[in-house]
């Protein structure tokens, strides 16, 4: 983007910046022109960055006390909870932090769906975001195995067994993932290694995500292209920075409320029982943020089919920029899409609820219905709407609708 060349004031800073332009980069981030109409749904990017940093910091210190061994892991978690100074706090922040991270990412993704932020020229931002989301799920899944409780063990067993559905090589892949003939110590140690590593990979992808964002600039609630550095934009700092911080504070109040008052509300009591390879808990469920996918998995009455549907539901999201044929970005000007958007939200919430239920009778029936609708939304409704829908007239600038009434 066009930006006047930044020259630091002091001689030392100039010396430094001409050798390593970190100051120029900081300047770019401060001055970066942002649409002036960004609403609170745009604050979740900052919140997500905060969440990632929190997980890494609490994770690294937890790893100072945690022992990745099948005989000791469960005891080491109890040790963290009882003996380590503030260990309970660190663990509750890390465990609930994962939930808050996913809460934020889901809001962030649905924001993009509503305002059409995934459309040209922002496809790369969207695709990198999806890769981040998939890596987050992998990281959280492996983190949940580390305490080596009953849910850890059986969650790991069920999820890794998904790969056994692949014809011919499936069994080999599962043995390779386990490093044995069942989930056991080798599985735990490699999960710990990857759980430690993946978040740093995510950090790298976040950098790419933001880089890709800073090429076309932010989308905005009315979704029109705007000229950067015009009366439609404001510098990121202080305007957007302060708004992001305010939203982060509200988010932190909720986060702290959970950590201090109901730290186990999102957890499962079975995970306070040590892993036992001989007994499966009577009702195993994944963490809440994976439930919609779990519902899709179980909706299909065939093992391979269920696995394909589950991965397919993610893949469809990746190619969404090419499934949506509408030229108009924001749902504000798409009266029909707006309705379908809210139906999709309800559908995903329903899948999440059904994923936690025993798949029998009506639960199974609605699970199937919701699964079918999910695919119909992306594969039929989205492409067709672009041709059929009569969209509302777009304003030519952000200032226009605001100033209209006044002059």
């Amino acid at each position: 983007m066009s930006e006047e060349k930044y020259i630091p004031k002091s001689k030392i800073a100039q010396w430094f910046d001409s050798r390593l332009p970190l100051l120029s980069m900081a300047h770019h981030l401060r001055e970066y022109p942002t649409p002036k109409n960004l609403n609170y749904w745009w604050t979740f990017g900052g919140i997500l960055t905060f969440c990632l940093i929190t997980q890494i910091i609490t994770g690294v210190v937890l790893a100072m006390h945690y022992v990745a061994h099948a005989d000791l892991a469960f005891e080491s978690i109890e040790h963290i909870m009882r003996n380590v100074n503030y260990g309970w706090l660190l663990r509750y922040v890390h465990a609930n932090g994962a939930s808050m991270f996913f809460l934020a990412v889901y809001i962030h993704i649905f924001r993009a769906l509503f305002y059409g932020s995934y459309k040209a020229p922002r496809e790369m931002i969207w695709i990198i975001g999806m890769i981040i989301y998939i890596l987050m799920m992998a990281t959280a899944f492996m983190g949940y195995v580390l305490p080596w409780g009953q849910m850890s063990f059986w969650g790991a067993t069920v999820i890794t067994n998904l790969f056994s559905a692949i014809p011919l090589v499936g069994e080999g892949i599962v043995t390779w993932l386990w490093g044995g003939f069942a989930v056991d110590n080798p599985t735990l140690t490699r999960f710990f290694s990857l759980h430690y590593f993946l978040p740093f990979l995510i950090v790298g992808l976040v950098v790419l995500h933001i880089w890709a964002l800073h090429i076309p600039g932010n989308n905005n609630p009315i979704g029109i292209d705007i000229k950067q550095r015009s009366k439609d934009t404001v510098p990121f700092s202080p305007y957007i920075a302060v708004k992001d911080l305010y939203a982060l504070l509200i988010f932190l109040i909720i986060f702290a409320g959970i950590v201090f008052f109901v730290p186990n509300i999102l957890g499962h009591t079975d995970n306070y029982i040590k892993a036992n390879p001989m007994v499966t808990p009577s009702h195993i469920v994944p963490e809440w943020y994976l439930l919609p996918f779990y519902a899709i998995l179980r909706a299909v009455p065939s093992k391979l089919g269920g696995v394909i549907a589950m991965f397919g539901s993610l893949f469809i999201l990746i190619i969404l920029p090419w499934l949506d044929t509408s030229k108009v970005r924001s749902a504000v000007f798409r009266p029909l899409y707006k309705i379908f958007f809210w139906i999709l939200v309800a559908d995903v919430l329903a899948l999440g609820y059904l994923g936690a239920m025993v798949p029998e009778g009506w639960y199974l029936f609605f699970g199937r219905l919701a699964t079918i609708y999910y695919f119909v939304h992306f594969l039929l409704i989205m492409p067709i709407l672009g041709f059929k829908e009569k969209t509302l007239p777009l304003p030519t600038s952000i200032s226009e609708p605001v100033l209209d009434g006044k002059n």
Partner: protein
Amino acid sequence: MNASYLLLTTIIILLVAFLYLSWIFVSNEIENKDKSKTNRRDFLYTASYTLGAVGVAAAAWPLIHQMNPDASVKALSTTEVDISTIELGKSITVLWRGKPVFIRRRTQEEIVEAQNIKLSDLKDPQDDKDRVKKPEWLVMLGVCTHLGCVPLGNKGDYKGWFCPCHGSHYDTSGRIRKGPAPTNLEIPKYEFIDNNTIKIG
């Protein structure tokens, strides 16, 4: 000479060849800017990339293979079990290679039920005779063939096993009858050492 040395040598040879060819390629590029026709340089270009890819693949293999079961895991491959204390109609669960194995002393009723079934009614047709060495003793992996949970005994619509995870029903021979599991509960390799002892694995 063992396999890993062989592998290492191959990798080193390939890497050297790769470096040599890359060097030729780069020096050619510098000396001669003429790009009009396909020539020796293009050949070297392709050849060096191919060799490079082979080298990288060879180097990746140890990194991938280290995740497969190691020697100590594979060494634990047999377990001997005393079955003299199991009463009629009862079962025990033992751990073999980290997996639960059900050993059930079946009642006459269960055996009859398992044998008198039309094979065509089964999702994964298998005769009960092919699943046991002695009809009284059913030995099988307690691992649901759907996604690996441990099914519960004396439960389900077929009086055999029921998997609570996603609702698979198995009969008194451990054959899948209803639910998402694709195949019957697996029979491990085992033998009767004497009347009171089974060796699994």
